[in-house]
């Protein structure tokens, strides 16, 4: 079990890394004691999007599938949660609504993924087909303003957005504020650890082998399509988790969180952070979300321009991602200082660079 945590596909290992990890986790856990509830709510809001970023990191960085459809599944699960929560009534049923909406997003991913992967779509076309689906969903939901668009008592409401669903609730206890924050932290730790174990497991090795060279992986006897579909479903399901949590956080969702420019955001986070590593994506996405939110208060357009600049700068200057690059520099510097110890981190850092996508 523990071997899988420190496997070859993820950076960061050994006592130093895990002590840092625990230190950050401890800070995150005691944070609500020192901050007011508004800040805690904001913090929880950043954490919502992390799942989507980790899912894209798995698909794109590890699986080599550049999906532009993260907000598609985000929207399906987000609207799904709303519709289900309204229809099933509040209370503990909201937990079932959360789970079901993520399952619906995963089923949608399975269907779309089947047609694309079994059709042999890859590379650029994978991106633009998923983006087309995303935009069509946004257009569709945008014109559902009329009263005839409803599922049970849940009105879709077009661009005004769907509202009126209950937040996540257990019994009569609403999971909001600090409670929601702790749920998010727990979910992120679980997802992060689970993904680390997945990519370092034998399944993960096949996923990476497929990214490196699908023909070679196929010749070695793996049905790469199944592994690709699995990756796509997990990655998209995580986007769905973000969507359902988003709706329950704000009790509100609009088509603008699906269409452009929202669809570009996960790409910016993951590209900027370094798509080849889960930890880099986790850290980088959080930093970007924090920065974005800070600037959005003054001007949303300016924040989005900055995101565009970051994306352009990343592909032009550091195609591997800024956070990952800086992280590697730090590791290099560290190991050079302790050369006598012969730490293997340098060699491993080099090994991860060998992708051609």
């Amino acid at each position, binding site marked *: 079990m523990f071997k899988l945590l420190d496997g070859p596909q993820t950076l960061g290992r050994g006592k130093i890394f895990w002590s840092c990890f625990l230190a950050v986790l401890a800070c995150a856990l005691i944070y609500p004691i020192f901050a007011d509830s508004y800040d805690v709510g904001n913090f929880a809001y950043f954490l919502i999007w992390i799942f989507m970023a980790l899912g894209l990191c798995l698909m794109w960085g590890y699986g080599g599938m550049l999906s532009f459809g993260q907000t598609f599944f985000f929207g399906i699960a987000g609207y799904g949660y709303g519709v289900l929560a309204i229809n099933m009534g509040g209370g503990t049923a909201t937990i079932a609504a959360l789970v079901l909406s993520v399952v619906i997003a995963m089923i949608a991913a399975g269907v779309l993924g089947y047609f694309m992967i079994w059709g042999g779509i890859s590379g650029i076309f994978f991106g633009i087909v998923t983006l087309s689906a995303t935009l069509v969903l946004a257009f569709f939901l945008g014109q559902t303003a009329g009263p005839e668009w409803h599922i049970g008592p849940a009105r879709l409401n077009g661009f005004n957005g769907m509202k009126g669903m209950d937040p996540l609730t257990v019994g009569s206890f609403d999971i909001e504020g600090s409670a929601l924050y702790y749920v998010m932290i727990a979910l992120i730790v679980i997802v992060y650890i689970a993904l680390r174990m997945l990519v370092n497991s034998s399944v993960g090795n096949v996923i990476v082998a497929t990214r490196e060279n699908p023909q070679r992986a196929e010749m070695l006897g793996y049905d790469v399509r199944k592994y690709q579909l699995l990756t796509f479903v997990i990655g998209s399901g995580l986007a769905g988790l973000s969507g359902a949590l988003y709706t329950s956080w704000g009790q509100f969702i609009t088509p603008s969180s699906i269409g452009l420019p929202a669809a570009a955001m996960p790409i910016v986070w993951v590209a900027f952070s370094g798509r080849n590593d889960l930890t880099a994506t986790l850290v980088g996405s959080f930093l970007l979300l924090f920065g974005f939110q800070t600037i959005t208060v003054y001007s949303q357009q300016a924040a989005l*321009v900055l995101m565009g600049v970051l994306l352009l700068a990343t592909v032009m200057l550091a195609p591997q991602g800024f956070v990952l690059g800086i992280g590697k520099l730090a590791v290099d510097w560290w190991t050079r200082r302790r050369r006598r110890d012969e730490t293997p981190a340098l060699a491993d850092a080099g090994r991860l660079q060998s992708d051609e996508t």
Partner: protein
Amino acid sequence: MSAELFSVFYQFADVFAFLILSAAGLAIVFGMMGVINMAHGEFIMCGAYVTVGLVNLGVPLPIAQILAALTAGIIGMIVEYLVVRRFYKRPLDSLLATWGLSLIVTQSMLLIVGSAVRGIGTPEGSFAIGGYTFSTYRLVLFGCAVAVLAGLYIIFMKTRFGVIARATMQNAAMAKALGARTGRIYSISFGIGTALAGLCGALYAPTMTLIPTMGATFVVESFVTVVIGGANVLLGTAPAAVFLAMIRMALNASYGQIIGQIGMLFAVILIIRVLPEGLSSVLVRRGR
């Protein structure tokens, strides 16, 4: 009877023109360089804004449209020189780079010019056949779409540039070894592609509201046309547009625009399962 037939043709022509005009620029860039220009919609927007700006200054509409297409073409060549050129060996990165550009341009436009710009009305003029009236401008658009196809055919099949361009498309290294300046070919092709995007925006500018995010209206249609067309864009784009226009027209007529778009997307997803290489692969196989 003939009035009904013409009405069907008119609806087909309307969708066909939209698909061809919005996809032609994207298809040329993709076919030549394997690059999907995610800022395609922004070049369309650029064409529309330049047209409206010039018309508001008093320039006649057709001249404004031609100037708008040229502007988009020149800006495209500058963008190619500054950005796209570096990514010919990394097509996925070119996708991200142009998407970054698209974000920058759309949001800057929102910051600078705001969301509302005074539009220009659709040119007047309609004619009646049987009991139906039709807008003349829609037929002009269809004529322009056919002219674009014919123009591209002549450029790529009948001129010296076309021969060299097709050679570059087939095997860039070999073309270069034979003395073709592939860099310049790419630059010109990208310019043609973005000029066509600008033309699309210029032609549709009188018919729609001008907002900086208007490019998004066109990208789905252009993407799916290119996907269905396949790798050989010279051969695939027109049949793909005919095919999609028929599906779209049938659905539009009975269920409305949005169902038409959803149906088109479903058709595309089904088709890529059967024909991942697109329609052009079938046509190429037939041709041999």
